[in-house]
């Protein structure tokens, strides 16, 4: 217990980084976990050559795990090349969260990554087709 909702996680929940949305975002994508109602939107501003995440911000509501892990994820990806994001996996998010999650709560932690990746993927598909 002492571990699960430890200060770092609570801090991210109460003081979310990269939070509140972006004006002039290149990409905006939102999803919710229908089973628990957690909802996250990610706004991404790409660099002009479209290879880099210039800025990123999330908004949403839900449990501590989903919101805090989204905040951690934002910190992690801001300023990174898109190719880095594509390599991000489940385990990377679990490492950021840094505490033991049960299977049911892993889903909460993954929502941010899912929204981020799906948003980027859709953008790239659209971009490619145009």
């Amino acid at each position, binding site marked *: 217990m002492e571990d699960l909702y430890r200060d770092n996680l609570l801090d991210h929940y109460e003081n979310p980084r990269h939070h509140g949305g972006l004006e002039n975002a290149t990409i905006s994508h939102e999803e919710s976990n229908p089973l628990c109602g*957690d909802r996250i939107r990610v706004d991404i501003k790409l660099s002009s050559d479209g290879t880099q995440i210039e800025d990123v911000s999330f908004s949403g509501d839900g449990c501590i795990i989903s919101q805090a892990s989204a905040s951690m994820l934002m910190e992690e990806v801001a300023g990174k090349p898109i190719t880095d994001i594509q390599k991000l996996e489940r385990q990377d998010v679990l490492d950021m969260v840094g505490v033991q999650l049960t299977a049911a709560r892993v889903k909460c932690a993954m929502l941010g990554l899912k929204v981020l990746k799906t948003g980027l993927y859709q953008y790239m598909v659209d971009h490619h087709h145009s």
Partner: protein
Amino acid sequence: MSSLDVARIRKDFPILNERVNGRPLVFLDSAASSQKPVQVLAAMEHIYRATYANVHRGVYWNSEQSTELYDDARCKIAQFIGAPSPENVIFVRNATEGLNLVAYSYGRHFLKAGDEVLLTEFEHHANFVPWHVLAKERGVKLKFIPMTQQGTLDLSKLDELLTPQVKLVTFAQVSNVLGTITDPRSIIDRAHAIGAKVIVDGCQSTPHMPINVQAMDCDFYAFSGHKMLGPTGIGILYGKRELLEAMPPFMTGGDMIGSVSFEDVTWADVPVKFEAGTPAFVEAIGLGAAVDYLSAIGMEAVRTHEKETVAYAIERMSEVPGATIIGPTDPEIRGGALTFTIKDIHPHDLGTLLDREGVAIRAGHHCAQPLHIRLGLKATARASFYIYTEQREIDALIEAIYKAKHTLRK
């Protein structure tokens, strides 16, 4: 002072001695599924260890024995719910299958475009989605009985809602979220007056109070065994005889036929017509043992115990700063489930934090998303009680909530 000898009852439930996360298990999720007494486990174990064979048509001892025990179970269950005969009792997997059976076999054959189904806003998905699908498929319209602020049904407009197009009315006798107990007769008589048939979802009532389907006069009644001390994999659909006889089978195959040739098939009599293939007969016998166990305690006493328990839980929860109780707070019209929210704590976080204290509650929408939309909530927390629930477990719940608030600085 409880109306049940809970300490004695708890001895029949070995799981209640287990520890979870280093703490004694405080199991407060019986509305999702109850624990099982050794008597039920022993009844099933005995079959598998000593007498097992498939039911029906076997002319040797083991098979006849299985058939007899299976038939006995049906009789016990019929008696338990006040059915006129075991032939009104169909074994299904769970309440969900029972409701789907009605939607497929009755709904698809007796409802047509323009007909209406009247339900409530607090139905479990099991009693909402099958009607939603029927509505889309057949041009049937769904209408909803509104709720009062308190979470009870507002029956003041019922007669207006009961237009001649309404062919089916269906509602949960006890809501699995609000806990609201609805007097079935208050709806059934008026529905019958316009010729509508009535389905009662008895999932949250059958385990917890005396039931008499004949006195209730419902046309169909569905419930699950696993919520009332029985094993998984077994549930019941009760139906009035003349309706069951008029309905075509749902699933078809072995056992439910009269005779089969290449050209023609005839059906067996009810209830067998609705039980295709090898039934979950060991589970049915387990449910029979569960019904024996409950009958020995007495369903009046069960109800009294839960009324006391929920009253105490309401009292304790009302003290908690930031706690909001969802649904009626009058124990007379509330079943043994207390749904609540804690300000600024997401129910999932609360569930996880309570789990670390060994306290098992459910968090989420409890398969009642439409209701949560109506309430303007994404999720709620629910603690639910049964015959083995002790007051000290409510105390443990409350204590764990305070601890969670402290951890999260709320």
